[in-house]
């Protein structure tokens, strides 16, 4: 469903992606790991057209999106939802209004139909009765749940997760991971997650890809990935993915 072919990206003189070749399996949860500053979020943003590659192609289905803009890019984006690192909830809207936002804006839905769907979704993510609260009144975990509810409300084909558990304590992080897996199994969307949470990601992901020095050095099923004999990759996953690898961005 999503394919990146020879994708390269530089910021100023700093190369970030140096020839990414990656195919994301349909209907599965794929996690991208790599050292801090290796370009995982940059890679994710290419998949939805928030960034354009300097070279290479980004395919979503049979549409090449790297040079698209405007209405044509928006047509592709309708297949996506994204959960940002900080949840990116709209500050001036309540949780209810945030989750209802895509329904009202994209489907022009109104009234009880919206209320019913939003309340269902809030209950699924464990935020029943919290619709009246504003993002500033929520904890980090609750914001992530609200962001997830907003991402799921349109039942998209593809959901991108940009470090969904960063900044959360281990118990909360596990609850968010469990929620993502439960939703993925129930709705069958294609999930692409960027995460540092090793070894947890091996229990929730179908596929794991590692980004190192601007390239995908390994992509395998979670079980196969853990059996890798590559010494650098093995060291990375053994120490929990917290060591910055050579060649990674600083800042």
């Amino acid at each position: 469903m999503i394919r990146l072919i020879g994708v390269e990206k530089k910021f100023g003189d700093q190369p970030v992606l140096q020839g990414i070749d990656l195919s994301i399996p349909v209907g599965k949860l794929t996690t991208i790991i790599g050292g801090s500053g290796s370009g995982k979020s940059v890679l994710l943003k290419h998949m939805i057209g928030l960034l354009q590659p300097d070279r290479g192609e980004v395919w979503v289905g049979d549409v090449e999106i790297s040079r698209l803009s405007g209405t044509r890019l928006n047509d592709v984006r309708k297949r996506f939802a994204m959960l940002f690192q900080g949840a990116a909830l709209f500050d001036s809207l309540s949780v209810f209004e945030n989750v209802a936002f895509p329904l009202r804006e994209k489907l022009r839905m109104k009234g009880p139909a919206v209320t019913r769907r939003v309340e269902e979704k809030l209950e699924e993510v464990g935020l029943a009765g919290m619709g009246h609260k504003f993002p500033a009144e929520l904890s980090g975990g609750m914001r992530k749940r609200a962001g997830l509810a907003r991402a799921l409300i349109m039942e998209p084909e593809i959901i991108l997760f940009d470090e969904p558990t960063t900044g959360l304590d281990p118990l909360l992080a596990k609850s968010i991971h469990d929620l993502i897996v439960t939703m993925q199994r129930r709705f069958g969307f294609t999930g692409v997650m960027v995460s540092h949470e090793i070894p947890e990601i091996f229990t929730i992901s179908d596929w794991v890809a590692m980004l190192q020095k601007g390239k995908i050095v390994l992509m395998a099923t979670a079980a196969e990935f853990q059996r890798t004999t590559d010494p650098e990759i093995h060291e990375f996953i053994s120490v929990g993915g917290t060591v910055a690898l050579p060649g990674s961005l600083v800042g």
Partner: protein
Amino acid sequence: MTNVIEQLGAWAILRVREMGRMLLFLLSACAWLVRPPFRFYQIIKQLHFIGYKSTFVVVLTAGFTGMVLALQGYYSLRKFGSEGLLGSAVALSMIRELGPVLAALMVTARAGSAMTAEIGIMRITEQIDALDTMAINPLQYLIAPKLVAGVIGVPLLVAIFDVVGIYGGYLVGVDLLGVSEGAYWNSIESAVEWKDVYGGILKSVSFGVIVSWVCSYKGFYTRHSAEGLGRATTEAVVLASVLILVWDYFLTSVLL
């Protein structure tokens, strides 16, 4: 020497590129104004923020501006025995210049800086990216309503400014300094013409565009840091204020 020229050249190129990006930003936002969905609720909300919530500061500024204008004007006109023309002096100054310029500067300081900060925070916390990912154009959703609200709100505030300023001048000139009430209002009636009023309206409409445009632009392209946001807010207020004054000169030279 070559280094200095190189740096100067690089600076000039950066400035020209920035100007081009600003203009494209304005044109794109204007283009989205005529494409559905039309965001009437957003426009009303922005009108409330830019217009209604600036009323108090505009009234305060207008009142004291009118009062000080009357004070200064009275003592100047008295040298020529022309105190009776105080009303027209205050009214023409207000309607032609002080009303549009000072009201726009107050709106810039109050609503413009808040606009830059709001949009800047949305940029830093990826809320604008979230709109993009939902296939909602941020220029249409966020910026276009602010432009419309500026075009509607600032002229209304200028009208309030003019009225309050003239009454402020009345308070000082007539009640405090003893100018004839009849002379005050008669001089206004005889001196103020329709071209003064529509000149003021034209200025206020263009100032409304400048405030919304510049302050939204700076917030939209904020760098991802607290320092970046602070700098963007300062630059927005300074640039909008300077543009208002520069554009005021050009418009005045054309209208006169």
